[in-house]
Structures are given as structure tokens and as C-alpha cells.
């Protein structure tokens, strides 16, 4: 039984700078980092110390409140530095890779022949578990809960998103192996949702042991939250796990080869990059090697992830744990004269979902958008704009206001359990009052975690 979903609402933001379909090997990064900040709410307990030699798959730290969840090194090398921030919070664990590729080795196993507990134990022990995220809360999955389903979105619909059909092409076996492992973790179904607008790669189409669904429409069609909402929604007290397709391959590879596979294919995108390609690199790799000497201009913002939900990183920063994309955008820290580029300008250079800009005339134009707020923060005034880009049957404005007023009852009733901040990225984009909505939703989820979970 497969489901087909058609979205009427949404918004595709067309940016300049899609990556060319060309896979190249990135140079071995001079440094890699495991960033506890990639895992919201995680309090890491260090295992490795500065100066320790580690292998691929050696445990670096574990979750202080859930000791079973281990986070492992993606390379063999030496722990160079533990970077701490305010209140000694651990921000990054930097590891300098050596030339050897020593790995923690295990017997290859067929996940189909293992029990659920065995799969879970292997994933927890070997740093694969953090690839699973849970809804509600959008955090690393809690191994003590039973998910009613596991969702894998076979595509990403964010601006300039990497093409997973291209990335996983040829990895059929590992992908299938990964799905078989996931299937052991739930008594329900594993859902694989394909983009209805284009034919999917054979890896996805021929996947077994899953329910294959199709979704049609604009962004956020590719968001796993959208897919869950329409295919198997989450009620209070229920849990759903989600995984990125590339991480499914990594899970499959682990069981097939007996060692942690840190390689990732990452799309380098954005208007400010010269050579936009798919780079084969490593989870947590320093982006210096592929970003430096590859920029169109100097005043840029490097983002690990996409332009809507990614994390701002330094030019010598590190790729995020879940990211398969680096976006480089022009920084917008310039004043804009109101009649030319500012608020009253003709606006040919601004992409807007509102009909106040000539954007609607140029349906296929791609934009070079910068990081300017394009206005100042205000109280909510305009209504109805978020509803246009929110395909879920959730009242965005009302939910956000419930979060702002810390009204837990209302948050629950209005659907906080179903959403992640990324589901509100478009609402944030279109907001006339320039309110940081994803941050608000995260605050709401934190409150729920504290009070109700």
C-alpha cells in the first residue's frame, strides 16, 4: 500500500548556484570536527582526551543523559583540540587525520538476520544511532522509545538542495541493507517517500521492505515533516524516527563491511562559488579545502546545509553532521538606498512570495539573494502570508503565538508534536515582520521537552 500526496501550498525559492552533476574527490581535510552543537540539546561526556590517538569508529563522546548513545570519530588520527565556549560548553572536538585509515572493525552481518535489539545495540555502540532523529522534538532519537514508523525522504526540496538520486546512485545494495536494518527498529513501517515530480533513481524505486510513497508539489514537499504529516501523523505520545538517505547508505555499509563509513557526498552550492560540484568528503570535514580559492567574492557567508535551515560556519569551519550541502551566499551587510535596492525599490533583484515585487512576472528567474533581513523586526501585522506556504494542516500563526506565550496546552492542541523548526523555515522566509520563527519553534519544542516528555 503506497500513498500519494499532492501539495497545493508551498514555495520554491529559486537561487543561482546549483551544483553541477559531477562527483569529485575532495582533498583529505586537514582537520575534521565532531560538533555536539549539531545535536540539539545534547550534553556530551568526553571519552577521548586531547592528544589521544583515535581510529575511525572510536568513541569520542557519549550522551551524558543517555549513555548508550555514542558519537564516534570519522577518521583515524589525533584529537587535536576540544573547543569550548561560554560555561565551558563543548563546541567542537577537532581531530587531525593521519594518513592511515585505521578503523574499529567488526564482523560483517546481514541486518535481516539480526534481531531488533542486536541492530539497535550495534548502531548505538558504533556511532550510527545519531543518524536517527525523532519526532516529536527533532532531536537524536531516544533508544528507549518504540517508533511507530521510520521515515526516509528520498529527496530534498530546499533551495539548491543536493540531488539524492544522483548521490546514492549505484549504492542500491548498501541502501537496501540500511533499510533492512531500520526495519528491525520499528514494529511499524519504514516509509520511503519519493519526489512525484521527477522519476527517482533505481536505488529508491527498487527498494524493498519499505512502503514507497510519492509526494507532488513545491517545497516543503521534501521535508520529512510534511511527509509524516500526510502519511502517518504523530499524536501525542507517539514517536517517529527519520533518517537522511545518505545516512541509510552509511548504516547499510556498516553492516555489510563491518566498519563505520564516514564518507559523504556533499553538494557545494550557492551564487558565490566558482566550481560548483558534488564533492566526496568526510562527515565533519573542514570545508576550507573545497571552499577557499573557490569563491567569486570575498564578503560571503558559508553555510553548512541549505539557505533556509543551515548553520552559519566559518570559512575554515566544519561540515555539519547531518548536512549533504554547503551553500555560499553573499553577505548582505550593506545599506540599501530605499529607491534603488531598498524597501521602495523596483525589486527585480528580490525574490518574494508577495505580489509587491515583480517577481511574479519572472517565474523562472533565478536569484542571487544575500543575507540581508530586508527590513526591521516588527510585531505581527500581516496575516495569511504564512498559511500560503504552509501545506500542513497546522495554523502557523496561532502555533507561533502559543509558543511565544508559552501556552503548552495550546501548543499541544495546535500540533507542536508534529513539527520541527525546518517545517517553519518558509514561514520565516515570508514573514513581513522579520521574526525568527524557527528559533521560536525550537524554544517551544524545548519547553515541551522540559515539561511534557
Amino acid at each position, binding site marked *: 500500500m503506497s500513498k500519494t500526496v499532492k501539495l497545493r501550498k508551498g514555495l520554491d525559492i529559486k*537561487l543561482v548556484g546549483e551544483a553541477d552533476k559531477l562527483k569529485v574527490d575532495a582533498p583529505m581535510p586537514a582537520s575534521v570536527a565532531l560538533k555536539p552543537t549539531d545535536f540539539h540539546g545534547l550534553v556530551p561526556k568526553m571519552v577521548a582526551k586531547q592528544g589521544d590517538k583515535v581510529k575511525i569508529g572510536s568513541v569520542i563522546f557519549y550522551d551524558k543523559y543517555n549513555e548508550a548513545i555514542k558519537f564516534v570519530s570519522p577518521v583515524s588520527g589525533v584529537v587535536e583540540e576540544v573547543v569550548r565556549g561560554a560555561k565551558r560548553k563543548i563546541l567542537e572536538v577537532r581531530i587531525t587525520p593521519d594518513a592511515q585509515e585505521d578503523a574499529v572493525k567488526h564482523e560483517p552481518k546481514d541486518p535481516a538476520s539480526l534481531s531488533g535489539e542486536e541492530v539497535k545495540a550495534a548502531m548505538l555502540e558504533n556511532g550510527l544511532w545519531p543518524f536517527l532523529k525523532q519526532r516529536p522534538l527533532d532531536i537524536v532519537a531516544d533508544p528507549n522509545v518504540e517508533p511507530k514508523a521510520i521515515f526516509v525522504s528520498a529527496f530534498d526540496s530546499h*533551495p539548491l538542495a543536493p540531488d539524492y538520486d544522483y548521490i546514492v546512485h549505484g549504492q542500491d545494495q548498501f541502501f537496501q541493507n540500511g533499510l533492512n536494518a531500520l526495519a528491525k527498529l520499528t514494529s511499524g513501517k519504514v516509509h520511503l517517500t519519493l519526489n512525484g515530480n521527477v522519476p527517482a533513481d533505481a536505488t529508491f524505486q527498487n527498494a524493498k521492505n519499505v512502503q514507497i510513497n510519492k509526494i507532488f508539489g513545491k517545497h516543503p514537499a521534501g521535508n520529512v515533516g510534511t511527509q509524516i504529516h500526510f502519511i502517518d*501523523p504523530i499524536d501525542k505520545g507517539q514517536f517517529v524516527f527519520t533518517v537522511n538517505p545518505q545516512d541509510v547508505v552509511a548504516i547499510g555499509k556498516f553492516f555489510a563491511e563491518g566498519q563505520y563509513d564516514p564518507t559523504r557526498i556533499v553538494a557545494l552550492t550557492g551564487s558565490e562559488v566558482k566550481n560548483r560540484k558534488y564533492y566526496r568528503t568526510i562527515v565533519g570535514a573542514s570545508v576550507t579545502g573545497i571552499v577557499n580559492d573557490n569563491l567569486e567574492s570575498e564578503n560571503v*557567508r558559508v*553555510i553548512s546545509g541549505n*539557505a*533556509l*535551515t*543551515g548553520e*552559519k560556519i566559518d570559512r575554515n569551519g566544519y561540515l555539519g553532521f547531518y548536512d549533504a550541502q554547503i551553500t555560499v*551566499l553573499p*553577505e*548582505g*551587510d*550593506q*545599506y540599501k*538606498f*530605499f529607491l534603488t535596492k*531598498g*524597501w521602495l525599490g523596483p525589486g527585480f533583484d528580490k*525574490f*518574494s512570495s*508577495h*505580489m*509587491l*515585487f515583480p*517577481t511574479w512576472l519572472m517565474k523562472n528567474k533565478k536569484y542571487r*539573494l*544575500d*543575507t*540581508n*533581513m*530586508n*527590513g*526591521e523586526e*516588527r*510585531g*505581527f*501585522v*500581516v*496575516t*495569511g*502570508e504564512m498559511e500560503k506556504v504552509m501545506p500542513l*494542516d*497546522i*495554523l502557523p*500563526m*496561532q502555533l507561533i503565538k502559543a509558543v511565544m506565550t508559552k501556552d503548552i496546552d495550546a501548543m499541544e492542541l495546535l*500540533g507542536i508534536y508534529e513539527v520541527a*523548526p525546518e517545517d517553519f*523555515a518558509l514561514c*520565516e*522566509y*515570508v*514573514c*513581513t515582520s522579520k521574526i*525568527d*520563527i*524557527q*528559533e521560536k519553534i525550537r524554544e517551544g519544542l524545548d519547553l515541551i521537552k522540559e515539561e511534557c516528555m
Partner: protein
Amino acid sequence: MKALEKIIHNLDPKFEKGGKWEKMYPLYETLSTFLFTPKHVTKKGAHIRDGVDLKRTMFMVVLALIPCLLFGIYNTGHWHYEIQSYVNPALEGYRDYLTGFGDKVIYGLIKVLPLVIVSYAAGLAVEFVFGFIKGHGLHEGFLVSGMLIPLTMPADVPLWMVAIATIFAVVIGKEVFGGTGMNILNVALTARAFLYFAYPTAMSGDKVWKSGTDDMLVQAGNVMPDGASGATALGDLASFVGDSPVVAGKVMSSSDDLVAAFESAYDPIHAFIGMIPGSVGETSTLAALLGGAILIFTGVASWRIILSFFAGGMLFGLLMNGVGANAYMDLPGYYHLIIGGFAFGAVFMATDPVTAAQTSWGKIWYGLLGGALTVLIRVLNPAYPEGIMLAILFMNVMAPLIDHYVVQTNIKRRQKRFKTA
């Protein structure tokens, strides 16, 4: 522009915290952000943002009000000369709508521009006082209110009244709730309602709608000359339910065919175009619809509210026709949409997103009920010849209740998914 940018932003440090003119920061911020969209960049969440901001949105509303303003200026001039012509035979030709175009425009400008200036001056002054208290620049909401207020006033209203009403509306109607985006009642209508109840003689009756009626009456010896009338269409209609109905200055005996007399005095086409006396900007349905078209196309105002408001008025008008207990009820339903401030209110007042219902279905109910209530007040409550102001203010208060039921429906629908699954 680079030079200007340099000059302005070299001043930045002086206005920042600890700077020499720190206290003037709100004023400086307002001016500098008007000239230059600030260089603020995104910090959290989405790295790119839509080009739209509140300045552009509000500017579009002001733009959409221009047809009403221009028509209002001319219409003010016309009715001034029309009423003067009853004591000054030289002006008789001016009773034709287009004769004396230049004179009428000039007179209209002399009457209307001061209203606009006073409204903006008083309102912005209050906004800045609150801006100084709270340490932020001007929030754009008042840019629209400041234009709406003069357009809802009779042209002869004393300027000090406009100032007081504006100050009252901005302080009590908006700032005490927290400023732009936080108010419960529409600011411009709060100003109008304040004057309506505090100074009813300046806001109602049959001596205020044509500018200069008082002067004319003095010359005519305090009797309305034959054929002259200072009443609005709605004023006449309100008299239909009394003992001595009046149509366009002619007292009729109740048995006359009042509706036919009314229709010939207020030709529907003329009423639609706005060639009738009334508040400055409200008379022209055509101009309001022009503004409405701009607002609907740009998505600034909700088409749901505008369409359902008209539908609500029309339906209730038809319902009244069906009852038909008096001459007023027999008035064809569509008349309600083209006389008085119905269109102006539906397009510019009811659609204020802060005070209207916020959910999509809520907007439809809000509009339907608002339109119906307007006609209900007009027809069934002769104490208030014009119903739209009170109807919208009442619906402003009711909007959260409407939204509450829409939200409950959403919650129930969402919960049902889990029961059937």
C-alpha cells in the same frame, strides 16, 4: 547615494548608546531606515529573507488610498459650491458636477490637505513620544491610519478635533496595547468613533456634509433655501422611518413612493462614482474599489474579507427587501453597497490585518457578519444613519471569538485523524 549614505552613517555613533545624541535615537532610526534599508543580516534560522517588509506593505496601502483622496478633494469642492449656489446665484452653474473644475479642486485642497497634515502631525508626534519611551523608531502602522483618519471626517470638522481624535486613537486605541500589531480596535475608526460620540454635532446631522453649509445658512437667514439639502443619502434614508421623510431636501408625505423619489435623487451610477455628499474619502465606491483592486492584487488586503463584506451587505439588504416592513427596507439591496462609507470601510477598514480575524475561514465569517451588521444598523437603528463604523468596531472585538471557533475546528479535525487511524 554613496555620499549620502556616508554622511548619514557617519552619524551612527553619535546616536548609539552612550553617544552624544543617544536620546534622539528613535528619530534618527526612523529617518535613516526610511532612506536606507539597514544592513542587518540574518543571524538565526533562514539565511535569506523575503524582500518584503512592513514599510513596503504599508506604502502600498497609502498608494491604494490615493484615488479616494483625490476624489474626496474634488467632491469636497463640488458640494461646497453646490450649497453656496443657493445663496449666490452666480454659482448656479456649479451645480453641474464638472463645471468649475479648477475652483473645486482648489477649494478641496484647501479643506482636505490641512486635515491630512494635522492627522499625520498629531499621530506621528504621539508615535514618537512612545518611540522615545520605548527606545525604538516609528513603526509603520500609523502611516496608513494617518491617511485614513482625514478621509473618514466631514470636510468641515475643526482641525483641533482631528488632532484630539488622532491623539486619543493612537494612545488609547493602539499604544497602550503595545503599538503597531497589538491593537484590538482599528485606529482610524477609533478616532472617528471618538469624535462621533464626543462631538456629534460636528460629525452628524445635515449641516456638516457640504463644506460651508453653516456660512450659507447665515446668509440665508438660518433657513435651508428651497431645493437645498445638507443631508447625506443615508440621512435621508434614516428619515424614512420617521414621521416626515425627506428626500434631497424635499419633505414628503409618508405615503409618497419614497424609494422611487430616492432613486431619482440619488442615481445609482452617481452614487457609485461618488458624486454624493459624505465624509471626505468615503463617497466614491469606484475609487475604493480601485484601491481594493490594488490591495487584492498585491495581496496586502485579504480578498476574503473584502468579498465577503460586500456579500454580507448585499445579502442582508436582500433580506430586508424580503421583510419590506417600511420604505427603508424596500430600498434595493445594492444601494447599501454604494452609499455611505460601505465600500471604503470594506476595503480599507475591515481589512486591517491586526484587528480583523486572522484565520482564512475566520476572515470570511468576519466579512459576512460585518457587511450584514452594517446594513442592520443602518436600517433597523435610525439613531445611527451610518452603520459601518460601529459594525467594523464591533467585529474587531468579535474577531478573536470567530478565530477561536476556527481554531477549535482545526484542532478537532486534527484530532479526528488519530481516532479514525
